[in-house]
């Protein structure tokens, strides 16, 4: 009963909405709002052919590389900055400023420096994803529990063990928060970097359809981007669930004394 109820509640509204779109747009002759049936029809031929290997996968690969690089760099720098009071005080205003620059405006600069190839696009993604990860890591490292830090000192837990079991693990909830913010920034920048100057990629294709007035194809691209966003956030949640199971568990435990 409860399972059925939950399924109905979870799927009910989305089904209703899609159905409403389907029937409302059914006989549409409006050039900009083609029937959903038409969009669904062009979807496979638009995206599952050579575009999958030529545009979609390279875009995702760039996102993956840029995102991973930003994570590594952000966590490493964040630990260095967060562990030292002086470094933190020195870099704080600078980081505040750099973070406040909207990442897409860096695209023109990076085109100057790195051209319009893959390097530029990956750099754009790194330069946007870095800040949320970095700043959250700094916060996380800074808020390491002092009793736990004392425990490490009295038991002479040092070096790599201390670094991993005390610093990184304590900061991991904040690192994950930063990584989540970085992921949505990354998707945005993946698209933007390709809208600017490119000759392939997911964002580029969508803009091509727009310029060529291939409206159903353009709609299918918008839907694909949306689905990718949703898919990546689901993946992220699965990973988070594994990495932070201890955290969610201890939070629930402390809420019910």
């Amino acid at each position, binding site marked *: 009963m409860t399972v059925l109820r939950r399924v109905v509640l979870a799927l009910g509204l989305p089904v209703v909405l899609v159905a409403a779109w389907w029937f409302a747009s059914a006989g549409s002759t409006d050039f900009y709002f083609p029937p959903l049936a038409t969009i669904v029809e062009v979807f496979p031929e638009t995206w599952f052919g050579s575009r999958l290997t030529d545009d979609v996968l390279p875009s995702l690969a760039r996102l993956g590389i840029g995102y991973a690089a930003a994570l590594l760099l952000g966590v490493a720098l964040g630990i260095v900055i967060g562990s030292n009071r002086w470094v933190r005080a020195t870099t704080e205003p600078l980081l505040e400023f750099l973070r406040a620059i909207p990442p897409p405006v860096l695209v023109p600069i990076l085109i100057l420096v790195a051209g319009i190839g893959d390097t530029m696009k990956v750099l754009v993604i790194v330069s946007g994803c870095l800040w949320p990860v970095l700043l959250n890591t700094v916060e996380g490292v800074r808020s390491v529990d002092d009793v736990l830090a004392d425990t490490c000192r009295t038991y002479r837990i040092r070096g790599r063990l201390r670094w991993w079991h005390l610093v990184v693990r304590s900061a991991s909830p904040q690192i994950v928060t930063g990584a989540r913010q970085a992921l949505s920034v990354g998707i945005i920048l993946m698209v933007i970097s390709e809208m600017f100057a490119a000759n392939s990629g997911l964002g580029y294709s969508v803009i091509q359809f727009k310029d060529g007035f291939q409206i159903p194809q353009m709609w299918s691209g918008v839907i694909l981007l949306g689905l990718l966003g949703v898919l990546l956030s689901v993946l992220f949640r699965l990973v988070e669930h594994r990495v932070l199971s201890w955290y969610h568990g201890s939070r629930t435990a*402390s809420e019910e004394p």
Partner: protein
Amino acid sequence: MLAVNGLSKVYTGRGRRVEAIGDLTFTVEGGSFVCVVGPSGCGKTTLLRCCAGLLPPTSGTVALSGAPVTGPPDGLAVVFQEYGRSLFPWLRVADNVDLPLRAAGVARAERRDLVTEALDAVGLGDAHQAYPWQLSGGMQQRVAIARAIAYQPRVLLMDEPFAAVDAQTRADLEDLIRSVWQRLGVTLVFVTHDIDEAVYLSQRVIMLTASPTRVADDLVIDLPAERDQLTTRSDPRFTELRGLVYAQIQKAKLEGRTR
């Protein structure tokens, strides 16, 4: 074994100067069980942190087996009051006990034996795979004690370890600590504000004054070595000793107020 000589600690900051410890001198014999009691806010925790090498004293020295303590020394373990914060929430119980041994470079097979032994000793033989936060407060403190046992320290410092657990659990843990001490022959310094607890547990009670802290009195607890909650606590000698400590602490409090 543990020698505290002319120790003082002054905190300064924001234009304020707080003298937490005035002048402390005492020694703890190897293998003995000493309780340190004093009115609340008398710098007991500061003393313990200085002994553990976590806090540099303003003046005076702490020496462990003749060697001056400048940082956390080898062979010393601390059980903190805040059990919820001294265990690694992302490590399972067995891994929590294991981590200091890994840091000390103990071989894997020996580590496994030590961990199993220590957890059995505190009655948590079936909780190896649990996370700390899945256990009750008293059980979490048992894990912290097991971690200290497995580490095989020469000196064990405990900072009001049972202040945050309920009365029933507290009695059990007191007996556990007595038996651990008797079996391991470790030197145990136990800080508490509970006079009954101090008298029940130890061989000797050091009473402190209010801050700036000095030693107010030093009392040998001549109760029999075999103790249990029922008979020991109803022993007339227990009541007598308890009264002595109580009077001394009250006096210290009054002096602290008039000063």
